């Protein structure tokens, strides 16, 4: 009998927000979206994404320990390990923001130009924001950084560690603060005599996203302590303003392919095909382009085999996905696994297992990994939202969804896994990218699943309005990121329609 312990999710995602104390949890069950923290661990969808005062609630990434017990026959069972009855879990987190110290983001081919630093005239040590967190253990605890991370001598809050009632780690991130205010920002701008800024590289700026490894020491009475060093990772990302729309390719798709996971020989319509179809059709709520409503939502027909009409519909839908959708989303690619799934489905090789009302899935380790990364976009890595092109590197993973501890090379640049690695090449500050990169052209868009473009302002609206109405500049987005609306289901609980809610009246739609 052997026991193995792992932290789940392998890669968790927190999100920024300016609410002092109110937060919700990152998705843990596939298909359910973010969750409220409940005393009995029952899954409850988030009610509001802002607190009572209109501040954006942060999203906490919650980490758990699972024990895998393999018996003599090779059968493995798993159970969660929680604090209590003598069992203690001590968590350790490293977090850093290295964006300002990094080389410039150029494109997917050159995600970091080490010869062109974002801030060449400033010492690197002054640019890396790296707070220090003491370990945390026990129930309902909070640990804040001591000392705080600093950017050019000024403290920058990157977040705090908390534990829930069962000693699980909850990582909460920063408050969405980017600065300073008085420097040029955005493509083409620049400090006189210095190179031009771009959407991704703005000299002198910082923000408060971050990333880093998670470690744990598990003490179970009667057993040797288990030390899991850098066994999981957290990414603190910008808010997801449309949490019920997903990228057509997600970070889960990207990371699973990069780690060598293979698609099923016979894909399941419900589990493999439907998420892609729903993601594509779901973008209608965050973009007004006609392609999204051209994708059929007749899932019963789309999951039917052996019928000429159904066969033609599958073929037409495949064409729309592979050609029109792929050319509408900038820098988009399906993974090879997704192409396998879609091509097999179109050819009639799939399980016709569509269920319009699936039950709430049970909590499983694999499901936690899938839920965590499915919320994040897996394309448009220019540079992306939560993470960038680095996530496509097979060498970054020691196992599926486990960031390696070993040095690896990507795009010709050595990468040493450490706190700040994953987010260092993301746009600095993130709001610059958010402001500029809604559309690449009138017919090509970036990531509407996270950063809406046009939204329905209420359940009766017939046309969509620009999500960034009343946000005319980069600085305005920095100042008012928390005033923007979230695209949520109305009525609550129903899957659709998804309309804008919780928008602050100070930034109206004209």
């Amino acid at each position, binding site marked *: 009998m052997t026991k193995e312990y792992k932290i789940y999710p392998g890669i968790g995602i927190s999100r920024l927000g300016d609410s002092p104390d109110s937060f919700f949890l990152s998705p843990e069950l596939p298909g359910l979206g973010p969750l409220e923290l409940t005393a009995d661990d029952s899954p409850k969808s988030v009610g509001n994404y802002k607190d009572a005062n209109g501040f954006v609630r942060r999203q906490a990434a919650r980490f758990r320990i699972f024990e895998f017990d393999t018996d003599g026959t090779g059968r493995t069972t798993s159970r969660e390990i929680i604090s209590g009855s003598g069992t203690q879990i001590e968590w350790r987190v490293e977090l850093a923001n290295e964006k300002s110290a990094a080389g410039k983001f*150029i*494109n*997917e*081919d*050159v995600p970091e*130009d*080490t*010869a*062109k630093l974002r801030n060449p005239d400033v010492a690197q040590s002054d640019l890396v924001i790296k707070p220090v967190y003491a370990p945390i253990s026990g129930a309902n605890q909070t640990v804040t950084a001591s000392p705080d991370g600093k950017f050019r001598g000024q403290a920058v809050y990157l977040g705090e560690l908390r534990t829930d009632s069962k000693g699980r780690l909850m990582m909460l991130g920063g408050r969405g603060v980017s600065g300073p205010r008085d420097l040029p920002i*955005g*493509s*083409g*701008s*620049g400090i006189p005599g210095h190179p*031009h800024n*771009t*959407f*991704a590289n703005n000299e002198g700026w910082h923000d408060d996203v971050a990333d880093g490894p998670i470690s744990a020491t598990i003490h179970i009475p009667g057993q040797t302590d288990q030390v899991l060093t850098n066994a999981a990772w957290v990414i603190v990302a910008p808010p997801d303003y449309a949490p019920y729309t997903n990228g057509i390719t997600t970070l889960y798709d990207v990371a699973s392919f990069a780690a060598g996971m293979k698609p099923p020989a016979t894909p399941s319509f419900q589990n493999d095909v439907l998420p892609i179809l729903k993601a594509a059709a779901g973008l209608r709520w965050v973009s007004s382009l*006609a*392609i999204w409503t*051209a994708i059929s939502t007749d899932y019963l027909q789309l999951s039917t085999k052996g019928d000429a009409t159904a066969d033609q519909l599958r073929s*037409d839908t495949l*064409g*729309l996905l*592979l*050609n*029109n959708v*792929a*050319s*509408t989303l*900038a820098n988009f*690619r399906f993974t090879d696994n997704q192409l396998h799934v879609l091509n097999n489905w179109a050819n009639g090789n799939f399980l016709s297992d569509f269920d319009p009302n699936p039950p709430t899935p049970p909590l499983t380790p694999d499901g936690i990994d899938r839920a965590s990364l499915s919320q994040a976009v897996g394309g448009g890595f*220019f540079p992306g939202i939560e993470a960038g092109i680095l996530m496509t590197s097979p060498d970054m993973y020691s196992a599926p969804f486990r960031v390696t501890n070993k040095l690896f090379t990507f795009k010709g640049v050595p990468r040493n896994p450490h706190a700040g690695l994953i987010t260092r090449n993301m746009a600095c500050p993130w709001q610059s990218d958010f402001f*500029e*990169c809604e559309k*690449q*052209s*009138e*017919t*090509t868009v970036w990531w509407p699943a996270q950063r809406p473009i046009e939204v329905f302002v209420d359940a009766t609206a017939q046309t969509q309005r620009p999500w960034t109405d009343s946000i005319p500049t980069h600085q305005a987005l920095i100042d008012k990121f928390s005033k923007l609306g979230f695209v949520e289901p109305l009525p609550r609980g129903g899957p659709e329609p998804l309309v804008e809610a919780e928008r602050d009246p100070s930034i109206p739609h004209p």
Partner: protein
Amino acid sequence: MVRQLRPWQKITWGKPRPLATLRPSPLASLGNAVAGFWRTITKATLPSALGSLGSALDAYGSPTVPGVSALEEAQIFLSAGAEVEHALLVEYLYAAWSLGTSPFADTVSTIAIQEMCHLITVQNLLMFVGSQPSFSRQDQDEAPCLDPFPFSLRPLAKAVLEDFLLTEMPPLESMIAGDRVTMEPILRSHSSQGNTVHPVGLIYAKLYWLFQEDDTPTKDWPEVARSGFEPGRHIGTFPGAASGATFQADPQEGTTWHFGSTAQGVFETIDSRQAALRAIFEIAAQGEGPVSAPTTQPTEPSHFRRFMDIYQDPTFAGLSPSNWPINPYVANQGAPSGTQVTHPLAAALCRVFDRRYQILLASLRASLSHDRTSAQDIIIRTKYASWAFEEMLGSLKALLGSISRLPCQQGGSVAQRAAAPTFNLDGLALPNNAADLDKVLLQLHQSAAADINTALAARPDASTAFTLKGMQQTDRGRFPN
């Protein structure tokens, strides 16, 4: 009627300067008269004052336009440069697209994007010297005599890549040993066929000289001053200096020119002699130049470096031969050495593609005909620039997919030969007057409407039909009446 010479046709290449101190190279000893035109020059034998630029000028001669002022000479070189940049970016883009999802496609696409930036910066330089922007293409010359290589749409293969390398190469002596070992047989083979490739970088070197204030070597590119160009031949004043603040494309013009997506291509506004010198130098260094001086981008791989990395990559040799055609054309476009696209739908889509490409060029030209400091003009300027990017990033990309999924020949298969975009210009000649450009754009859209209807009548699949109808909707939005 006096035939107007195209810019390229006015350029002559001066006699190579004697290299009395050189020993004949092994290449020359081959006894091949054309191979003797190339000299493998070693640092031990070359007078140090010449440097690598000098060796290239010795090999090819010095580009000159006789009988004109320095300003006029610069205007001609820049027009020629624009035509070449346009041609190269199309050729590189076609080559990149032919690679499908190969990792090399991204690299070649990056080079094409950088050439797009060079094209825009050359437009700014043209306006700076008082000329009009030019979106003509090298093959529109009746008798192009100084092409890097004859304009041709070719899928990327070893021989094609060798042409790209020859176009972008710095002098042999400035190469690292591994690159020199790679290039020498390519040069030998090319010479033995009598093909002379004139590096465009020498044009930029001459331009740099013309733009210098005097004969004093500059900090950036001192070799130019020591390369034997005519002393004192410099431009005095720049008639279009004010255009830097008005008509030129400006990276700071909000997101109009997608500056952030330029893949580090050289894209600058030209408002002074110094800005012009810097831009010319950077373009030369980034792509074509025989530039040995350090640039502001010391580790930015040049186009030569990027092409060489592909050429030397073991997986490149293992790539399956492309199923893309060479020089595709549709009926009445003519290309004796090309491949006619005879599949009816593919041919119809190629016509749509050609028209969208022409709309893209006309939109760019129209955008630059409006003053960005005028409150009224900036709206029109931005509108036309957005049309250009819609075509570039939307229409052309979508049509590429639709076309390449079809067989080239009626009754054929994609596996045998896929159809591919034809990039035909139909003799497009863009006027300089803003009002005339508006008319050209209307006419192009009217022609596009007919092309789209022809393609729709050829019964495309759902995906292509969606693309075509989307274009119809876009065009109705542009010209509601």
